């Protein structure tokens, strides 16, 4: 790979132009309804210049100052997950023929080359897990696969962790180490650009980058290291599986069930959660039908409904399922914990339940 180069801030639009010329639609961070969301960028002016976030358990607010930086914030409510694992989509349709036989028709998403700008390290780590889940098993998911195959990822190293972030303790950030096509480190005067893949190399070559001053690299490295230092929360990096399963009757599960709304916001914003439900939506005249898949959660009744019985009818069992799966049995299924330390489930929980606190409470004491 080529040595990193420098892209002066006024030339950031060249990156968008090169991606557009290569056939990509460009998605990136924008402010919408009081949060940073990833939507189509018309120009570099759409970026959240001078926008900063304040995140706390159950609270998220933005404010602006006159900083020239466009990536001086920690992740918002969603990033890559909804772009690949659609919140709701048709998997197939079926229609009754005149002879009464039913014919099935797969519904594939349109292949839409998509560049996402501003992807964080935690979201790249989550993407690796989603790839493993959706693509690397015996039955790769074609819907996810089409979108994944058309993705170009421009990472931005994180320099502004929120109070809810703990990616340093899970080993997933704040520096984007791999899994991107291009990575950017943002400085006041511009961006340090690194290529991370052959397609990234090609684009890198089109950017007419300037030579990098070693002092710029040192500043960027310092900011990323400081971002790791600044994180206030941690999750033990050891495998919590045995601790969690030894504590299935810990009183903390009752305690959290008093607070938890069983609302599924945590699992919906979690970039690694992949549970879904499927349903049929027939046309009124019964002649044809659409088969949908949509986001589900271990916090719903339907999730544990089997043959007339709801296995996890109360919140204690549902919260326990979420935590013991995410931090415990994921190790057996995917070789690591399902948490990449993004902190979303803490900030976007309406009642501010903190996964790091709950895990510490359950695994800390000895109630086995």
């Amino acid at each position: 790979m080529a040595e990193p180069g420098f892209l002066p801030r006024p030339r950031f639009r060249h990156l968008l132009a090169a991606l557009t010329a290569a056939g990509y639609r460009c998605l990136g961070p924008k402010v919408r309804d009081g949060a940073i969301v990833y939507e189509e960028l018309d120009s570099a002016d759409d970026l959240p210049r001078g926008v900063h976030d304040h995140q706390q358990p159950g609270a998220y607010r933005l404010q602006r100052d006159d900083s020239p930086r466009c990536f001086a914030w920690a992740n918002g409510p969603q990033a890559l997950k909804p772009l690949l694992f659609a919140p709701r989509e048709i998997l197939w349709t079926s229609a009754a023929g005149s002879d009464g036989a039913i014919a099935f028709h797969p519904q594939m998403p349109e292949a839409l080359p998509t560049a996402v700008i501003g992807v964080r390290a935690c979201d790249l780590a989550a993407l690796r897990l989603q790839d493993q889940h959706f693509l690397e098993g015996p039955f790769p998911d074609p819907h996810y696969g089409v979108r994944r195959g058309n993705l170009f990822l421009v990472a931005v190293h994180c320099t502004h962790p929120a109070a809810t972030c703990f990616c340093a303790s899970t080993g997933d950030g704040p520096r984007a180490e791999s899994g991107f096509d291009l990575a950017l480190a943002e400085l006041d005067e511009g961006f340090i650009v690194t290529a991370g893949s052959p397609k990234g190399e090609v684009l890198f070559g089109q950017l007419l980058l300037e030579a990098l001053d070693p002092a710029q690299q040192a500043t960027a490295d310092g900011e990323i290291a400081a971002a790791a230092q600044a994180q206030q929360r941690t999750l033990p990096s050891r495998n919590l599986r045995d601790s969690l399963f030894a504590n299935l009757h810990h009183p903390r599960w009752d305690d959290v069930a008093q607070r938890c709304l069983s609302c599924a916001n945590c699992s919906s914003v979690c970039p690694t959660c992949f549970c879904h439900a499927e349903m049929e939506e027939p046309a009124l005249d019964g002649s044809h039908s659409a088969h949908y898949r949509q986001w589900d959660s271990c916090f719903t009744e339907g999730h544990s409904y089997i043959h007339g019985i709801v296995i996890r009818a109360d919140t204690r069992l549902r919260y326990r399922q979420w935590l013991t799966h995410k931090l415990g049995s994921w190790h057996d299924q995917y070789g690591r914990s399902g948490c990449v330390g993004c902190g979303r489930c803490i900030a976007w929980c309406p009642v501010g339940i903190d996964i790091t606190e709950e895990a510490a409470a359950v695994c800390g004491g000895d109630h086995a």
Partner: protein
Amino acid sequence: MAAAKARLAVHKFSSCDGCQLAFLNLGEDLLRLAELVEIVHFAEAGPVDPEAPVDIAFVEGSISTPEDEERIRQIRKNSRWLITIGACATAGGLQALRNLADGPGWIAEIYAQPGYIHSLATSTPIAAHVPVDLELWGCPVNGRQVLGAVRALLFGVVPALEQDKVCLECKRHQAVCVLVAKGLPCMGPVTLAGCGALCPRFGRDCYACYGPAENPNAAALGRRLEGLGLVPEAVARRFLFINNGAPDFAEAGRHWQEQAHDPEP
């Protein structure tokens, strides 16, 4: 020979008529529905035959007069499937607020000749009077709900009802949470999905018009609303609104009213 068409009726009790619009606003699907079933009674749309036996009876409105009590028993006898539509028929409606107040006192204050008003002391849901086969929540219900129920019954299966909370729909639509990002007192975490998270998608807080979802933790949401700055009386009003008669909301409302009048030390 084709089998006889299923017969359908839409009845109205104490209500604003808004749920009947779920049928009237269907556009072409209303014509399709009229081809699939025989609509024998639906006063707002034309056909009037309130005592006809039917396969499917949709019932809008709550029971609030002595005549209502008698009429719903007749409808039950004449109907194979009785489906309530909307907050009034399913939880007593907004008008069930009078169950918590001095109804006769209010009538006396408002009407010059209160003797002409023959109301029951309460406004109650249909299920408090006769067995109900299916309850469709919402204020108002929408076309998707009523057509989904008709389609399932014509297939001979039990209609699959929403169980999830509004938060799930909100997230599926990629709406930004107004409780977390704006501190608004959103009722989505205890409210049944079905509206498509309409209010949060327009930047305002859900006011629970679809009634309680399964496994609602009204106590925890109430505490959170208080934490957002609502006084106990205001928290009570969040629960005692359109679906004040739904047991989970009624209980939460009572609790916060007690807090308002007799705060714990």
